[in-house]
C-alpha cells in the first residue's frame, strides 16, 4: 500500500489499514487530560500503593506486592503494575479488574479509554473499563506493527536505518502516546512518528542510539540516548535537547619532547626533571615475545638501562622457572627509585602460574638490589594465583609510613598500633623483618580488581569492593557495580581533608567523589572512561582516561589535544605528563592560547519533509577523463589517490593514504610519508596555503613548511577534513563521537582557536567561503573502525555566519562533503545519494534518481564548486556535474564500473582532477 507520506527515507513500506478508513492525523496533542477529580498521585511504598489528593492527603492505601508502576486514573482511581498483573483500582481503592500481561516492569499510561502498558519495544493496550485486550504495538528489527482488536485494524510499517556501517544491527524501541500516536526509535538514532492509523508522519534523527522512549501525559515523548534526553513533540518538533557536556579547551597545550622508545609503557616516575624513569615493553606484548625494558631520561635523552633482574622468560609456559614482572616505578622513602612488581613462578605441570609474590628492587648507585629491609618479609605475600594478578599497590606516608599490598596480603610499617584492616579484623602481625608488619586486608573483591591505597596525612585510605575506607574503617560503601567489566578504582589523597576517589566500569556512569574532611561530594566524571585522578591542590585536579580533564576549583574542562598514552603526575602544580611510544608530552597552560571562536547554538530544527528526486541526466559529452600517473621524486609514481586539493596560486596536493605530495607539472615532490601501518585516516586531509606550505592531518594536525612536514600543531581525534578560507585561516572538523572533544578548530596567523557552540555532531567536511560564511557537513552519529571515523545517522548541515550556527537536517542520511558555491549557498552530499542545497536560509533535500525514476542510493563522497557549476563524486564510478539547471553524468567508465571516486576539483581554465583508490584522472574538455 502506497501513501504520500510513505516517502519518508526510513520507511520501506506500510500496509494494513486502507488510507480511506484512517482518520486524519490528530492535532498536536496538547495536554488534554482532564485534571483527576480526586487522586492526584499514587505513591509506591513497600507492599502497597497510596493514593493522594492534590493536597498530598492520603485517600486510600491498597496492599499490593511487587509494584513497579502506579498512576492515577481519570475517574479518581488508579492503575497499578504489580509483577505481571495490571490492577485497576476504583476511586475508593476497591479493585475493579486485574489482568495478567507479558510485561514485568515497565511503564503505565492511562488515557480516558485505555491503559497502555509499555516495555521498551512493546506497548499493550487494555480497555480502561474492563481490562479487555485492545491490541498491542510492537517494534522489531523490521519495523513497527500493530496487532489490533476490532474496531482498530492491524497495520505494519517496515522501517530501515539510516545508511551506516554495513554490519550494523538494528534494535528498536517505541512508545505510544495517550492519543495513540507511536514514536519508534532505533539504534542509529532514527525516530519515526506513526499516527494511530499506521501512517508514518515524520522522521528525524537524534544523537546516539535510542535506548528508551517515554510517552508523557502531555503528548510529548522523552527520548533517551547516550547523549541524554531529547523531548520530541507533535509533528517532530524538538522541544529540548541534552545540555552540553564538559566544555573542551585549547587553553592547555601538550608539548612533545622525546620519550622512551617503548611500544607499551607500563609505568613512568619522575623523581626530578632530569631524573625520569620508564618501564615497559619494546614490542607489543605477546606470549611469544615477552620483554620488558627500563629507560632513564636526564631531561634530554632517553637511554636504556641494563637490568638483568628485569629480563623476562621468552617462553615461560610449563618452564617451571621464575621471572619478575615489573608493575610500577615509584619514589621510595629515601628518594630512591623503587621497582615494584610480582615474582612469577611458572608451573611445569600445567600452563599457568604456580604462585606469585611481591618483589621490590631499589636503585643503589648504578645497580638494582633487593630492598634489604623488605626482602625477608616478601614471602608473606606469596599466594596461589594462576595468572598475573596485576598491580601491586604501594603507598608512602609521613614519618616513614609505607604499605605494600598484593591483592589482599599487605606489608606495612609505621602504622599506628590501633590500625585494623577492617571492622573486627585482626591486628597486623610481625612480617619477620621489623619494623614491617603483615596483615590480610580482605575486601570481598575478585583478585584481579584494583584496590588503590594512599596516605592522607597519617591516615591510610583504600578504595575497594567494600567502599572507601580510612584506616580500615569504611566511610562510604559503594553501590554494587552493574558490570565488573573495566571496573576501575583510583584514589588520590593530598591531605586529610582533600581526598579524591574515582569509580568507573563499563556500564554505570563513572563518577568522582571528593572528601573535604567532613563529607563526600560526588561529581559525574568529566571523561567517558576515566582511569586516574591526581591533584596538586583544590584548584588543580586532573582526570586522565579516554582524554584528559582539569578542574580549576570552579569548573571542569576537557583538555583538547591531550594525546593518548600513560599518565604521569606533574612535578609542579598546573602540569601533568603523558608518555607514549617515543614521546613525552608536558601538558600545561599555553600562555599564547587564543580565545575561542564563539557562536550561538540554535535548537535542533523540526523534522523535515522527505527529499525530492533529483534526476541524473544522460552523459555530458563536453568533458572526459584522462588517467595520469605522477612521478614522485625519490619514490615510485603515484598512480592512485584518495584526496586532491587545490590551494592558492593553483598549488595541488594529492595523497594516497601513505604519501602526501605536491604536484609540479608532471612531477611531484614528497611532503610527507606516513608510517606503513598508520595511513592518513581522513577525508580532505590537507589544505595547502602555497607552494610547500600548508596543513595536513596525520593522527594530529600538522604543518608543512618549506616542503616538509613540520611539528604537530594539535593532536585531535577523528579529524576528517581541513579547508582554507580566503582569509588564510584553515578550518578543521572532527567526526569524533566524544562530546568532550572539539568538533572544529581554526588555525590562523595568531594560532589555534576552538570553535565553540558548534552543534554536537560528527563532521566530515567543512567549506569556509569566508570566516563568517562557513558550512559544516556530517551526521548526528559516528562510527569508527580503529583506522578512521565517519559520520552516520541523520545528516546535518550547519552554517556559521560569524555569530550563530544554523542547523539543517538531511533526511537520507549522513553528509560526507560540502561545497560553498556562493554567498550563504552550499551543496552537500552524502549517503544513499542524498543531496542538500542550501541558499539564503532555505534548504532543499534531494535524492538521486536515474532517468527511469529508479532511486540511486549511491554513497556520494565529494563535492566541489566550479565556475557556475557543482561537481559531485562518489561510489560506483559516480561523477556528476550540476550546471545550474540540470545534473548530468560524466562518463567515468575509465575508472571501472564499481570504482570509488573520493575527491574532485572542478575544471576551470585548467583541467580538473578526480581521484580514487583505483586511479588519478584529469578532467579535460572533450575535443
Amino acid at each position, binding site marked *: 500500500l502506497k501513501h504520500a507520506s510513505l516517502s519518508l527515507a526510513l520507511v520501506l513500506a506500510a500496509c494494513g489499514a486502507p488510507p480511506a478508513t484512517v482518520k486524519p492525523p490528530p492535532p498536536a496533542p496538547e495536554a488534554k487530560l482532564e485534571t483527576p477529580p480526586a487522586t492526584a498521585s499514587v505513591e509506591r511504598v513497600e507492599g502497597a500503593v497510596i493514593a493522594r489528593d492534590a493536597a498530598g492527603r492520603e485517600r486510600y492505601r491498597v496492599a499490593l506486592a511487587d509494584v513497579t508502576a502506579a498512576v492515577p486514573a481519570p475517574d479518581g482511581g488508579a492503575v497499578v503494575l504489580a509483577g505481571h498483573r495490571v490492577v485497576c483500582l476504583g476511586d475508593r481503592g476497591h479493585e475493579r479488574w486485574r489482568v495478567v500481561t507479558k510485561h514485568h516492569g515497565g511503564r503505565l499510561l492511562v488515557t480516558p479509554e485505555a491503559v497502555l502498558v509499555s516495555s521498551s519495544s512493546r506497548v499493550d493496550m487494555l480497555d480502561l473499563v474492563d481490562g479487555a485486550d485492545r491490541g498491542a504495538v510492537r517494534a522489531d528489527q523490521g519495523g513497527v506493527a500493530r496487532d489490533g482488536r476490532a474496531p482498530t485494524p492491524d497495520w505494519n510499517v517496515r522501517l530501515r536505518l539510516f545508511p551506516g556501517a554495513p*554490519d550494523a544491527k538494528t534494535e528498536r524501541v517505541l512508545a505510544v502516546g495517550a492519543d495513540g500516536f507511536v514514536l519508534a526509535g532505533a539504534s542509529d538514532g532514527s525516530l519515526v512518528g506513526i499516527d494511530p492509523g499506521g501512517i508514518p508522519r515524520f522522521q528525524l534523527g537524534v544523537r546516539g542510539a535510542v535506548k528508551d522512549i517515554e510517552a508523557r501525559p502531555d503528548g510529548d515523548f522523552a527520548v533517551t540516548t547516550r547523549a541524554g534526553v531529547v523531548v520530541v513533540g507533535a509533528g517532530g518538533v524538538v522541544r529540548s535537547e541534552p545540555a552540553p557536556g564538559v566544555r573542551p579547551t585549547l587553553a592547555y597545550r601538550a608539548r612533545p619532547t622525546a620519550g622512551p622508545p617503548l611500544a607499551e609503557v607500563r609505568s613512568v616516575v619522575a623523581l626530578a626533571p632530569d631524573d625520569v624513569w620508564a618501564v615497559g615493553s619494546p614490542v607489543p606484548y605477546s606470549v*611469544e*615475545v615477552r620483554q620488558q625494558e627500563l629507560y632513564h631520561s636526564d631531561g634530554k635523552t632517553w637511554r636504556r638501562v641494563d637490568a638483568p633482574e628485569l629480563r623476562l622468560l621468552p617462553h615461560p609456559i610449563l618452564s617451571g622457572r621464575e621471572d619478575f614482572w615489573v608493575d610500577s616505578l615509584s619514589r621510595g622513602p629515601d628518594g630512591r627509585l623503587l621497582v615494584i612488581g610480582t615474582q612469577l613462578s611458572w608451573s611445569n605441570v600445567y600452563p599457568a602460574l604456580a604462585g606469585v609474590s611481591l618483589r621490590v628492587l631499589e636503585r643503589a648507585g648504578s645497580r638494582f638490589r633487593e630492598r634489604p629491609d623488605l626482602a625477608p618479609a616478601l614471602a608473606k605475600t606469596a599466594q596461589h594465583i594462576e595468572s598475573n594478578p596485576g598491580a601491586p599497590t604501594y603507598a608512602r606516608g609521613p614519618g616513614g609510613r609505607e604499605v605494600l599490598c598484593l591483592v589482599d596480603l599487605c606489608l606495612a610499617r609505621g602504622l599506628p598500633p590501633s590500625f585494623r584492616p577492617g571492622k573486627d579484623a585482626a591486628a597486623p602481625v610481625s612480617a619477620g623483618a621489623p619494623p614491617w608488619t603483615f596483615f590480610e586486608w580482605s575486601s570481598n573483591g575478585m583478585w584481579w580488581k584494583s584496590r588503590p591505597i594512599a596516605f592522607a596525612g597519617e591516615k591510610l585510605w583504600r578504595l575497594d569492593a567494600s567502599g572507601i575506607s580510612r584506616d580500615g574503617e569504611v566511610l562510604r560503601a559503594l553501590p554494587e557495580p552493574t558490570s565488573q567489566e573495566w571496573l576501575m578504582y583510583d584514589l588520590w589523597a593530598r591531605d586529610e581533608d582533600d581526598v579524591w576517589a574515582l569509580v568507573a566500569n563499563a556500564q554505570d556512569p563513572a563518577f568522582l567523589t571528593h572528601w573535604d574532611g567532613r563529607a563526600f561530594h560526588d561529581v559525574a566524571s568529566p571523561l567517558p572512561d576515566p582511569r586516574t585522578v591526581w591533584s596538586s591542590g583544590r584548584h588543580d585536579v586532573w582526570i586522565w582516561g579516554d582524554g584528559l580533564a582539569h578542574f580549576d576549583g570552579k569548573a571542569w574542562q576537557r583538555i583538547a589535544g591531550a594525546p593518548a598514552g600513560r599518565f604521569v603526575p606533574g612535578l609542579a602544580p598546573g602540569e601533568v605528563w603523558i608518555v607514549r611510544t617515543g614521546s613525552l608530552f608536558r601538558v600545561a597552560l599555553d600562555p599564547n592560547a587564543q580565545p575561542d571562536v564563539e557562536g550561538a547554538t540554535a535548537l535542533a530544527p523540526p523534522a523535515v519533509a522527505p527529499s525530492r528526486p533529483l534526476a541524473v541526466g544522460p552523459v555530458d559529452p563536453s568533458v572526459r577523463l584522462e588517467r595520469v600517473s605522477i612521478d614522485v621524486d625519490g619514490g615510485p609514481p603515484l598512480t592512485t589517490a584518495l584526496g586532491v586539493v587545490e590551494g592558492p596560486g593553483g598549488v595541488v596536493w594529492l595523497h594516497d593514504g601513505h604519501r602526501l605530495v605536491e604536484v609540479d607539472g608532471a612531477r611531484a615532490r614528497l611532503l610527507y610519508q606516513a608510517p606503513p*601501518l598508520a595511513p592518513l*585516516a581522513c577525508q580532505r586531509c590537507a589544505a595547502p596555503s602555497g607552494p610547500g606550505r600548508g596543513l595536513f592531518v596525520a593522527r594530529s594536525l600538522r604543518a608543512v613548511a618549506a616542503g616538509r612536514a613540520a611539528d604537530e600543531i594539535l593532536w585531535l581525534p577523528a579529524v576528517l577534513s581541513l579547508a582554507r578560507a580566503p582569509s588564510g585561516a584553515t578550518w578543521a572538523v572532527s567526526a569524533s563521537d566524544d562530546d568532550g572533544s572539539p568538533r572544529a578548530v581554526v588555525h590562523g596567523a595568531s594560532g589555534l582557536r576552538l570553535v565553540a557552540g558548534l552543534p554536537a555532531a560528527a563532521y566530515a567536511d567543512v567549506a569556509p567561503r569566508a570566516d563568517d560564511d562557513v558550512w559544516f557537513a556530517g551526521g548526528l552519529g559516528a562510527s569508527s*573502525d580503529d*583506522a578512521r571515523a565517519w559520520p552516520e545517522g541523520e545528516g546535518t548541515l550547519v552554517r556559521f555566519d560569524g555569530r550563530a550556527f544554523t542547523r539543517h537536517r538531511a533526511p537520507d542520511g549522513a553528509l560526507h562533503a560540502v561545497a560553498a558555491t556562493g554567498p550563504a549557498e552550499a551543496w552537500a552530499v552524502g549517503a544513499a545519494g542524498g543531496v542538500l542545497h542550501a541558499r539564503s536560509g532555505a534548504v532543499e533535500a534531494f535524492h538521486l534518481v536515474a532517468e527511469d525514476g529508479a532511486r540511486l542510493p549511491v554513497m556520494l563522497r565529494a563535492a566541489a564548486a566550479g565556475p557556475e557549476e557543482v561537481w559531485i563524486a562518489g561510489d560506483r564510478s559516480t561523477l556528476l556535474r550540476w550546471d545550474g539547471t540540470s545534473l548530468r553524468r560524466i562518463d567515468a567508465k575509465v575508472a*571501472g564500473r564499481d*570504482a570509488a571516486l573520493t575527491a574532485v576539483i572542478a575544471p576551470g581554465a585548467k583541467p580538473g582532477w578526480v581521484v580514487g583508490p*583505483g586511479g588519478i584522472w584529469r578532467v579535460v574538455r572533450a575535443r
Partner: protein
Amino acid sequence: MLVAVEGRDERDVWLLSQSALFHWDGARLVEEKGPACKQRLDLSGLALTRDAVIALGAHHEFEGSTPLEVRRSGRGRWSCDLLVVHRRTIALGPALLGLGPDGLTLSGLALPYRRWLGPEIAARTAEDLWLYDADQGDVFHGNGVGWESRPTGLARVLSLRVDATGAAWLVGATESKGEGDVVLRWDLAAHAWRRVPTPADLRAARVRVSSGRDVWLVGDEHVHHWDGQTLHRARTPLARVEGAWVGASGELWLAGGDRRRGEPGQPSAGLAFRVSPPSGKKP
C-alpha cells in the same frame, strides 16, 4: 595428501601437501626443497605473487597453533616466519594482501579501511575486495575506502571468486549444513545478485572462475562447468578435494587425496587432476 593448488599459468602450477611443495612446469612435477623450519610444519594454503611462492600453515603447540609462513622468493631463497598474529594472505598481482585482526595490508602498507567483516576474502584488486564467512550468508564488498553489505539471502556462502571483469561468483547454501546448492553472480550494472540456473541437485563447495564462460563448481561428488549458457556435469575425479585452481585457458586443477575425510585405512595419497572444459579448448 595435497592441500592446495595455485598457479600463475598452465606452465607454472604449484601444489602443496601438508609438508612439501611441488612445482609443475608444464611437463613434469618436481618437489621443491623447502626451508628447514625449526618448527614442525602443517601447511594448508598457497599464495603466489609474481616473484614469490608463499605456503601458509601453522605450527602446533601445546597451548594452540601459531600461524606460519614459508616463503620462496624469485631467486629460490627460502624463509620461514612465525606470524605472531593470525592472518590470511592472498596474492593480488605483484602484491600481497594481508588480512589480520588489525585490518588489511597491501605489500605491508595498511589500507585505509579496516573493519573486520569476515574471515574469507576474495579480491581482484585492493579496490575490489570481497569478504565473507562460510558459516554465514553475509557478503561485504570493499571499494578501497569503505565497505558495503551485499546480502545474498543465503544461510551460508561457501566460496566466492571474482572474474577478470570484476563480476563475483559464489556458491552458497540455503541450509546451514551440507554443500552449496545455489550459485549467484554479482551483476555490476544492476548492482544486485543474479541467480545462475542450476539443477536442483547441485552440490558444490568451491567456485573457480576465469571468465563468465569458464566457471567451475567443485563438490564432493561432481564437478560442474558453466560456459555462460549450459551447465555440464562430471564426476569428481578425487575422493577428497582440498584445493582448486583455474587458469586463463579455463582448465581446472584439482588437488586432494584418494580417500574421503574420515575414511579408515591408510593415510590419503596425494592426487592432482587437470580437468578440461567440455568445449575441449584444451586437452
